[in-house]
């Protein structure tokens, strides 16, 4: 009787959890923990804190996975509305840190509303497009685009280009999978290209500098170029098989800035070499592959577009982060999924994976 109860409990626990996704995620988290350990053991060790973040993330993932997609869909509007209100509040009352107004002080703690939008925007757009699924006109795409541009502009204004790009990308992926006509995509790209010179003049100095230093990092070796120079040295000196765990000189002599957060990949590649980087890229490929598989098998428009958006967002995180650390993309504040230290991003990403699991495990239910 008791054993039966245990079995049912276990069944209940794993029912909505997708095995492959969980395995890949755990593998990434394990390498992340090991790398955070290496990057921080000289100073205050952050492994315990990151383990706690991961535990919280896994719980959140599990809970979200239990919710069927229609229920998830209902979160779209309120989350989006809340996020937008908070962004407006940030715009007027935000706390300035390092020249950027990104945080909202609640007295006892500070929150970064833009993080919420990373999920709220695709949920909102997916909900909206799903609602008009029967007869999607260009008009609907246009309205969806406006729903996307509003938070995008507010976040870009803070300024937080990294998050803005991620939010914008997540929204764009929704439109893309919902069937935005190619002509419209081409038009958008054209408009973006035309707006580029205008955007350049609108950019903050430091943002322009980051783009310029990408072209020639040595132009400012102690300033903006420093991050890129030091991280490429770390990666390059890692060679085929790396200097070994805890043995990276660039890491342990503190040449790599932000080495446990945004630049954690430089630490990983220095200590594990091309081989390690290859393994990591394969893990991300598997994660994204599994996500695309779930996307392809999803049963409703909402499920499809939200799964597709989440999957490609995961790709965007990984690609932009590694590309930036390897010196082929400008420096923007994007963490490496499940590797970088930091609770907020970890929970957001875990919830995303939870949504994927929910979609995967509930697809039969909807059919029936």
């Amino acid at each position, binding site marked *: 009787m008791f054993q039966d109860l245990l079995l049912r409990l276990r069944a209940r626990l794993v029912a909505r959890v997708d095995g492959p996704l969980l395995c890949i995620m755990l593998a990434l988290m394990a390498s992340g923990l090991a790398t955070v350990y290496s990057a921080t053991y000289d100073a205050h060790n952050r492994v315990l804190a990151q383990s706690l973040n991961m535990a919280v993330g896994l719980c959140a993932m599990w809970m979200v996975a239990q919710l069927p997609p229609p229920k998830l869909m209902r979160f779209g509007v309120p989350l989006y509305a809340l996020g937008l209100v908070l962004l407006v509040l940030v715009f007027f009352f935000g706390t300035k840190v390092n020249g950027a107004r990104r945080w909202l002080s609640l007295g006892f703690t500070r929150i970064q509303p833009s993080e919420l939008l990373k999920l709220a925007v695709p949920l909102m757009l997916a909900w909206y497009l799903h609602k008009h699924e029967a007869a999607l006109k260009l008009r609907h795409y246009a309205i969806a685009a406006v729903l996307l541009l509003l938070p995008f502009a507010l976040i870009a204004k803070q300024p937080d280009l990294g998050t803005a790009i991620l939010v914008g990308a997540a929204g764009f992926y929704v439109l*893309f*999978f919902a*069937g935005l006509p190619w002509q419209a995509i081409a038009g958008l790209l054209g408009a973006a290209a035309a707006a580029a010179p205008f955007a350049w003049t609108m950019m903050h100095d430091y943002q322009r500098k980051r783009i310029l230093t990408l072209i020639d990092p040595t132009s400012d070796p102690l300033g903006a170029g420093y991050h890129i120079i*030091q991280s*490429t*040295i*770390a*990666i*390059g*000196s*890692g*060679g*085929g098989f790396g200097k070994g765990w805890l043995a990276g*000189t*660039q890491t342990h*002599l*503190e*040449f790599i800035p932000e080495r446990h957060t945004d630049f954690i990949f430089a630490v990983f*590649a220095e200590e594990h*070499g*091309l081989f390690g*980087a*290859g393994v990591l*890229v394969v893990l*991300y*490929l598997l994660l*994204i*592959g599994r996500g*695309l598989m779930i*996307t*392809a098998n999803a049963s409703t428009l909402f499920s*499809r577009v939200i799964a*597709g958006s989440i*999957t*490609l967002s995961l*790709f965007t995180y990984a*690609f932009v982060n*590694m*590309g930036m650390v*390897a*010196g*082929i993309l400008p420096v923007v504040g994007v963490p490496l999924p499940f590797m970088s230290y930091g609770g907020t991003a970890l929970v957001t990403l875990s919830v995303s994976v939870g949504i994927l699991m929910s979609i995967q495990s509930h697809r039969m239910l909807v059919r029936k």
Partner: protein
Amino acid sequence: MLTLRSPLKTADRELARFRFRAALAGVAVVAAFALLMARFFHLQIVQHEYYTTRAEDNRISLVPIVPNRGVIADSKGVVLARNYSAFTLEITPSKVDDLEATIEALGKIIEILPKDRKRFRRLLEESKTFESLPIRSRLSEEEVARFAANRYLFPGVEVKARLFRQYPLGPIGAHAIGYIGRINKKDLELIEESEQAANYKGTDHIGKTGLEQSYEFHLHGETGYEQVEIDAGGRAIRSLSRTAPVQGNNLTLTLDIKLQEMAERAFGDRRGALVAIEPATGGILALVSTPTFDPNLFVDGIRSDDWDLLNNSPDRPLLNRALNGAYPPGSTFKPFMALAALETGKRTPGQSIADPGFFNFGGHQFRDDKKGGHGMVDMHKSIVHSCDTYYYILANDMGIDSIARFMSQLSFGQRTGVDIEGESEGVLPSPEWKKRRFKRPEQQKWFAGETVSIGIGQGYNAYTPIQLAQATAVVANSGVMFRPHLVRYIVDSRTGEKTMIEPEPMRVLPWKRQHVEVIKRAMVGVNTHGTGAKAFAGAGYVAAGKTGTAQVFSLKGAEYKSSRVKKELRDHALFIAFAPVDEPKIALAVLVENGGFGAQSAAPIARMVFDYYLLGKLPQGAAAEDDVEDD
């Protein structure tokens, strides 16, 4: 049927389109990751070596270890220049944003006086770009501790343990020993020309004058290196390897610092110079230039008030008179003239002239100091009593070319080659010299009348005291000439091996022995019954000498009375001498600026030096200065 199929068909088409897009996304993802892998391959395999070097360069820093500078000691082993270690507070201006604010804040922890700030500002103007400059030196233990506790507040500021140069005897022998000072742009050029740049990494002082300058590369030593692992903040984490520095070589001088001190004291507050040479070796026993200065003032960068005091003093203490002062030799020139006459066959020792007290030449009367003249004068008497007329006639007989040829063998008008840099040439007058010296044709012509005054050491004649001392030493040594030098030997700090300086004669002048003897006997006569007799009365050795007085100011026929002439316009007093006469151990030249008669003010100094050097006797108060025969 159609109406039913249509939406279904649409849905199918939608799904197909969606799957196509998902597949497209998959392709894009794979392509993007392939691009990343290509980049990793490029960095980690293709350019691996380059980045490994970069990482090593990042990680490893070569820190120079400055060697201890060699010690300078006198002939008896008394230390004249040594090192001591002390803490200094240093600022690296390139690492500090607001220099003024930093110094202000530092001043609250450690006492920084206005003069320290002034000196720092001066160093800042002269400095190389990235070096650290001292703001305070000689910190106490307590001050070091106080700064250490607040160190984090001051990036770019640090306490360094440094070796400092110290001259324990201060001003004694300062012109010979010289001093070191901070390396400036000119020094840097010299270091680079000498291909010593690598060896001077980390060194910030260099010899500026005297032996400190001329033996710089011996004294400096070889810089050692330490490979240290550094972190991104430039802090040293651990040492990887260390190549010890090699201490600079020590110098042992020919200079006898006790003799030097005694000689300097003999000058009192008078300006002048004295060079004493050991004739048999060319070793300089004393090299005096008064007034002198304290070389310790220069080591840390001299304070501006000290500098003004030294630089603006009318007595010009920084001028090394022994090497850079050029003075007419006056009557001290006569023994050399006499030797020239013998060697060129223009005179024999016994040949006499009748001296009426003047010599008429070209409508001009050249007067003797003694009214009415010395009567019949032979060579011996001409030196003992310093007869001018004898030399007016002799000079006229020899002619300027012959005089110049002979004198140039004795180093007159040339650098003696002493081992201190910047020696002056002086002036050995000749028609060629006049052509070089003057621009206008009418000035370039040599007049025969000019030769006449050359004979008594006046006219264009101008020699440095070291040239005069060198010529005296060569006569004392009967024509065997050594290059005068201050360093006896250099001790290699690694092997302890001694390298002698100048053990071989530079040249041997083929003088007839009896000719030199005539001169030496006459110079002995000077000190026994001639112009130097008063100063050398009762000497316990036989000394040869010659007094001299060099005109500073032409009185145009009027009687010269020293008491009536302003001090600056008084004649310079000179004296050359060597002793003991048969086996000379010391030869010297003394010059007292505006001292009046050589016999009065210069000869007693020579006597004191000889007494001390030959007999170990210390002077008993100043010698009497009255009632002496004119030169």
